[in-house]
Structures are given as C-alpha cells and as structure tokens.
C-alpha cells in the first residue's frame, strides 16, 4: 500500500505546506526519537509488556493487518482475507514479497507458529500475557491445557494462506487475531520457557521482524539504534536510521531545542507543549489518546478469598457508603472535569461523556447526558437522599446521621492524574462530601491492590485509566460484571445485557450502526448508574523538528509509515 500523507493521516504533516517553497529533502539521515522511560528490553512481541518496548517493536514487527484512521482493517502482511459463511473462519492470503530481516521469506508457517506459541501450554508460565489473541479460537482450551497436540484455531492452508477458526462467531474477530508475527525459523527450536531470554528476543542484531527498520545496536536503557531495512517490502526507508533515546520528560523540550532530539512522540509533557508551539522550527501535533481516565467507585467488595470467582456476584458485599445511586450521581455532578483539562492539561485534552474514545465510532456524545458538572444538582441530590450536614462541619453526614468520609486512592506515575486527585477532593468538598486522600502508590502495586483489596473497607474511590489500544471499543473487560478489570465490582443485569447484545454476531456483524446504538444506550445506563466517572481524555502530544517530514498520524499510531519519513535541509 503506497502511503502518502494525503491518503492516510487524518491530520497531514503540517510541515509539508508551510514556509516558502518546499525545503529540499536530504538523502538518508538519522532521526533521534525520545521516550521517557526505559524499555524492559524484551523485544519479542509475544512477551513484551511495556509500551516502551513497543516503541521499538512498532518499527521492527508487523501484523497481518493494519488499521486506517477510521479503525477499519487494511491489508499489511496479508493481502486480503475472507470470512466463511458461518463467520467462524477467516482465511488470510499472505503477501509473497515479504522477507524477514535476515532474508528468510515470510510464510504461513510463521503465522501459525506465532499463534501456536501464544496458545502454548507454557506460554503463560513463561510470562506471556497476550492470550486474548488466541483464547477465542477453536481448541484453545484443549491446546493450552496440554490435552491437544495441535492447535485447531489456526491452520496453514498453503505456504501463503492461513485460516483462523473461532469457537463462536465474533464481531471483533479481526481485532482479536491481529497480532505481530514472529519468525518461526528463529524460534522453532526454542522451548517456550526459554524464549524470553533467547537472543532473538533481547539482543540487538538478533531481533528479527519484517518491519521497515531493524534493531541493530543498543546501549541498554539508553539508546536503541534502528537501521533501515533496505529490503523492506514497501520499499527501502528514506531514512538511514532511527535512534530511540531514553530521556527524562522534563528535559525533552530542552533537548529538542538543542537538536539532541528530533522527535518526541506521544508523551511530550503538555506543560511544555504550549511553549513549543510558538517555537520556530518545531511542529506540535496533538490528538486525543486512545484511552481515558476515570474515577472509579468501589460499589461492591469481594469476593473475599477466591479471585477465581470474580464474577460470582453472590460473593460480593456492597460497600454501604456507595450503595445509593443518586449519591454516586451527586459525586459525578460535583466534579468539574473541564477545569482539570484547562488547568492540568493546558487544554490538551477533552472531556468525554461516554467511556469511549471520541475518535471511535462507538462514541456518540449527543445522545448521552448525566455527566455534566452541576454543583447545584449534586447538592440537591444529596439533600434529597438525606445527606445533610447535621453537625455543621461543612460536610454532609450520611442519612443515618453518621459522619461520612470516603477515601480516595490514586497511583503515582501519571503527573496529571496525580495532580488531579487533590483537586477532586476539593471539588467534592464544595458539594459537602468529605474525601480523605490516601498516600499514592506506585502504579504496578496500586492496580494489584485495587483489584485485590476487595474485602477491605478502606477503598471507596480510586483513580484509574483505561486504554483501548486500537482495537474494538467493546468495554466489557472493565465494565461488565465479570470483567477482569471491573475494579468497581458493579453489576447490573440490564446494562450487561446491552454489552452482550452489541456483540451478538447475528445482529452486529458488519453493522456498526447497530452496535453504536447499543453502546449509546449502554453509555446512558453507565452514566445513570454512576459507578465510574470518565474524567477526561488527555491528548498525546508529538513534538518534532520541522525538518522531519512524512509522518502520518493516525489516532493510535504515528509510526505506521515510518519508511516514508525523511529529513529536509535546514
């Protein structure tokens, strides 16, 4: 697929047209990119976990399909595909001109191998987390459980044809199988347990993909050198190399100005972005991220011991403080979300009215209400439900007249989220709700804690974020009663039903309108039930030197056509 800024990016590279005349392109050249945390140095797509490793993998590995700015799937390693009648099978025909970085041809064997590995009985034990890409496929349970010798879910038809077989028809089928392919010839003799430590997963020069760049050198934790793959099937990249450097967010602006960095994608701090926008020689591009931040409420605790029975709502215990729906709504109305965006995000963000990214087709804000900031309404809801300040301390007591304090937990790591926590406390104070702000925890232990500390009454409110990736907007994982990330432990039959309906293959197949309708109805119920408040979507901010051209920004990716990137003279 020939890609130019015209047919791909929603927002074409602004540098293109500006200035007097087109600056002259230079041959080759090196582009230095900045990221602010160290990768974990795991460059095997089936094992990496950190998004910083993904920064590198994005240049080196490819999947069967790619998505356009409308999230529609477009061919990549697969030329095209077709569904079977019963919608349970997809057959991909692969390109024949793709070569791995080491010159080996890319074939159906690689695809099958990749998915077999994902379903391997030892995969989870070796630290793999990406079973969602295989667990809907036919025969997964048997294969992963070690009962079957072959994986029925993926099948090589011929050297350039692969067939995926689902257990049930799924409307999300394409997104559920679209995963980076790893080379069989490198890993076939490696036991799955040893794969994460294998050279091909960690060593520069040994990491083999099909992408436009190959990882040739690195100083771990500092620099990752990606050199052009001259044999790239879309054509040799225009740049000679792309170098990732790990730099602190706080000095990113300075380093760009110093010319030490050319491009700081996605994570450029919003505070500095304003400054950079005015600067000559730099381009700032921002768009909403593909995820959102929310304030969760622990509506139910439980299950006490056995996390296996997460979905067994009978084992749940209601959190008495948050049982009242209108009280929860009052909390929702008391939060001035726009002020968070204007303040902490410097406007680089937007509020959302439904738990979908605005760029997604599922997002239909006009139809949904009940999330607006309305202090009066919050107060009247409180009063109506008997939450009044009886002892004159400025805070409401619960209907029984007991003092009411909710505690709010939040994780460290995301500066804006950290800063918004105390503001939420204040805003709720305005409404008369007393919040006790708890000591923040580091991200990783925090999420373990909020999902596990279920029997403990010390958790009422929590801040969290949710990222959808570029996949299907289906929110089941976090919002369905049995969802693994349903930290709120909220369950409502009617609401859950809508989610199920939205995925009903009968009606939803290739019918985005139908799904939009269902999701809109669901979103309304979501906001009525008020067990979580979507706070804002922050923008991803990209800052790069004006000399760098050819970047295509999709709502979820900036590196899609990196082989087209080029530099111009000053």
């Amino acid at each position, binding site marked *: 697929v020939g890609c130019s800024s015209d047919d791909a990016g929603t927002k074409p590279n602004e540098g293109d047209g500006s200035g007097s005349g087109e600056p002259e392109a230079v041959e080759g050249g090196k582009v230095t990119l900045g990221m602010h945390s160290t990768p974990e140095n795991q460059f095997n797509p089936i094992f990496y976990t950190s998004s910083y490793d993904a920064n590198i993998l994005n240049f080196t590995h490819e999947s069967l399909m790619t998505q356009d700015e409308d999230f529609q799937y477009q061919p990549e390693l697969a030329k095209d595909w077709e569904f079977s009648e019963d919608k349970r099978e997809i057959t991909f025909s692969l390109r024949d001109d793709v070569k791995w970085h080491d010159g080996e041809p890319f074939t159906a064997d690689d695809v099958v191998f990749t998915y077999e590995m994902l379903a391997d009985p030892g995969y989870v034990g070796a630290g793999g987390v990406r079973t969602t890409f295989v667990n809907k496929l036919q025969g997964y349970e048997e294969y992963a459980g070690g009962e079957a010798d072959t994986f029925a879910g993926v099948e090589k038809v011929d050297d350039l044809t692969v067939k995926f077989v689902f257990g049930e028809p799924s409307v999300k089928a394409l997104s559920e199988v679209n995963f980076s392919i790893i080379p069989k010839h490198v890993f076939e003799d490696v036991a799955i347990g040893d794969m994460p430590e294998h050279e091909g997963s960690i060593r520069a020069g040994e990491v083999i993909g099909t992408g436009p760049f190959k990882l040739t050198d690195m100083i771990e934790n*500092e620099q990752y050198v990606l050199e052009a793959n001259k044999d790239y099937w879309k054509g040799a990249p225009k740049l000679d190399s792309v170098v990732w450097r790990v730099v602190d967010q706080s000095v990113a602006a300075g380093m760009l100005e110093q010319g030490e960095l050319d491009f700081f994608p996605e994570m450029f701090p919003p505070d500095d972005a304003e400054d950079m926008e005015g600067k000559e020689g730099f381009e700032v591009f921002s768009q909403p991220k593909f995820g959102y931040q929310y304030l969760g409420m622990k509506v139910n605790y439980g299950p006490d011991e056995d996390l296996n029975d997460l979905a067994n709502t009978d084992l749940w215990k209601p959190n008495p403080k948050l049982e009242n729906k209108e009280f929860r709504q009052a909390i929702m109305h008391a939060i001035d979300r726009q002020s968070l965006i204007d303040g902490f995000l410097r406007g680089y963000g937007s509020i959302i009215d439904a738990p979908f990214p605005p760029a997604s087709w599922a997002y239909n804000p006009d139809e949904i209400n009940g999330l607006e900031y309305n202090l009066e309404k919050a107060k009247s809801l409180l009063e109506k439900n008997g939450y009044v300040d009886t002892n004159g301390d400025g805070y409401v007591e619960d209907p029984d007249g007991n003092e009411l304090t909710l505690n709010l937990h939040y994780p460290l790591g995301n500066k804006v989220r950290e800063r918004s926590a105390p503001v939420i406390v204040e805003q709720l104070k305005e409404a008369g709700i007393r919040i006790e702000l708890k000591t923040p925890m580091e991200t990783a232990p925090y999420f373990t804690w909020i999902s596990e500390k279920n029997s403990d009454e010390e958790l009422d409110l929590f801040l969290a974020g949710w990222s959808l990736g570029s996949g299907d907007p289906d929110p089941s994982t976090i919002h369905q009663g049995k969802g693994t990330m349903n930290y709120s432990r909220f369950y409502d039959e009617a609401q859950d039903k809508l989610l199920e309906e939205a995925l009903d293959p009968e009606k939803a197949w290739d019918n985005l309108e139908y799904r939009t309708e269902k999701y809109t109805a669901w979103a309304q119920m979501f906001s009525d039930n008020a067990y979580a408040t979507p706070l804002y979507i922050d923008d991803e901010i990209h800052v790069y030197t004006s000399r760098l051209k050819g970047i295509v920004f999709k709502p979820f990716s900036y590196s899609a056509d990196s082989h087209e990137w080029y530099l111009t003279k000053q």
Partner: protein
Amino acid sequence: MFKYIIRRLLQFIPLVLIVTMIVFLFAYLAPGDALSGEMLDPNIDPEVYEEQRAALGLNDPVYVQYWNWLKRAAVGDFGMSLNFKGRSVSDLIMQRFDNTLYLAMFSLVVTLVVSIPIGMYSARHKNSLLDYSGTTFAFLGLATPNFFAALLGIYVFSFGLGWLPTQGSVSSTGLSGLDEFLSRIHHLVLPGITLGLAGTASYMRYMRSEMLDVLGSDYIRTARAKGLGEKTVLYKHTLRNAIIPIVTLLGIEFGTLLGGAVITEAVFNYPGLGTLFLSSVQNRDYPVLMAINLIAAVSILIGNLLADISYAAIDPRIRLN
C-alpha cells in the same frame, strides 16, 4: 602489612554474612517470593499453589531457605526480576554496575582533587579570600539538595551554555577506544560533580580543620625547629598526617556516593544501579532491590576495607593493633 590485610579480610567475612542475613530478612519480609523472583499466581488451585511453594522451597525452615539462597547468591544468582520479564537479576545488575562504578569513581576523584588542595590552602591561609570562598562554598554545598544542584547544572551548562550533555552515559553507540572514553567522561562531568558536591564540601572542611590541627601539633613545631623549609613541612609532614582521618572517611563516602547515585542518576537518566534501584522500588521489584542492597553493602564493605588498608599504609601506628 600483609598480615594486617589478611586479618582485615578475615574480619570481613562475618560482616558479609551478617549483611546477607539482613538482606535475606528484608526479602523474607517483603511480599511475594523476593528471593527467587517467582511470583506465584494466588488464583490457582490451592493444592497446586502449595505444591509450587514446596517446589520453590518456600515451606522450608527459614535457615534452610537462607542457606539455599546464600549458595545461589554466592555464585551471583539472585533469581529473576519481577519487573523485567525474563531477565535475571544478576544480568540486570551487571548491565549497569560498571556505569555506577564509573560515576562513583569519577565523583570521588573530583571530590578529592578539589577538596584536598583547597582545604590545605584554606588552612595555610586562614581568613584569606580563598579560605572564605571555600568555606562559603562548603556551607552552600552542604545546604543545597543534590538534585537541585543537578537541575541548576543542567539549566546552566547544558541548556544555557550547551557545553555538557544532560542524559545518558555515552553519546552514541558504536564508539570505541578513546572516543568512547571521552564521550563517557563528557557525560560524567555533570552527574559526577553534582554527586560529589556534598562530599567535596564536607571534605574541604575536614581537610581544613585537620590541617589546622596538624599544623598546631608538636611535631610540626619540631619540623620547623629542625629548620625544614615550609614546603617540606607542609607536604611531607603535614599533609600525610592530615590525610589520615580523611582516608578513613573514604570508606563511608563510598556508601554515600552509592546512595546519592539514586538521585543523581535519576536526574540525568544515567543508566546505573541508582536508576535501576529506583525503578525497582517503584515497581516493587524486590529481587532486584535486595540484590542491589547486597551489592551496595558489599561494595561499602570493600570500600571500608580499602580505606582501612590505605589507612594502614599511611599510618604506621595502625599495623600494630
């Protein structure tokens, strides 16, 4: 002298053992199995869970666990990192250890090269301009938080003047020989100086007061009475005596540097043990945490040992007892 070193080495062993015990205890207290880095999935079948625990030796008596861990630690096997999937702790540490070592060494050298001459000069020329400036610098150095000095340094020398790099340990890959060395030094200047700031300040003061003490001592009066020139008195008789107490401090300073490295490395994104430690704290990567603690403690012990040996080398009184 040789006997002294042997004796010190023998004393070293029980201390290392105690240190390992403490680290083991910490790891034992920490959630999960911080010793092997195996995180057991608590969601699995309790029977299987128990089996796995038993297989990992988690049900053994504490001392057996300690012994097994010690045996593994002795050959550098600290288990797997929880955070860095598929990486062994020793691998992670090896990767960064040399960087921190360079940083600590560089800053130690800067500290000594700056503080000793200035301290000496200040003592010789009490109340001179340089003495006052030195004292002022020392006071300021002790009162300025390390990270703040680092930030100011970046602001002025990297972004203001553009002289020094702010991030990382080397400018690019593929360098070798002299180029690499120079690039590394270039990258060490700012972190090294900020890391050594507090040390420099306090050593300067130490040196000054030690020099003053020694200059007022009887044997210096003797040296003068013998008609020795000022230079001999100063460099031969005073310096060596004044430096003795400083040398003993060096062992401790080594520890301070390792601790300070956590902050300095964080500011400069310097890929050393400090940043690894910090990220391990943030991610509760206990196996890495414990291993770094152990390494730091052992490094300090070695530092102390070296300090003691050099102490003995310059102070003949030590060798007797």
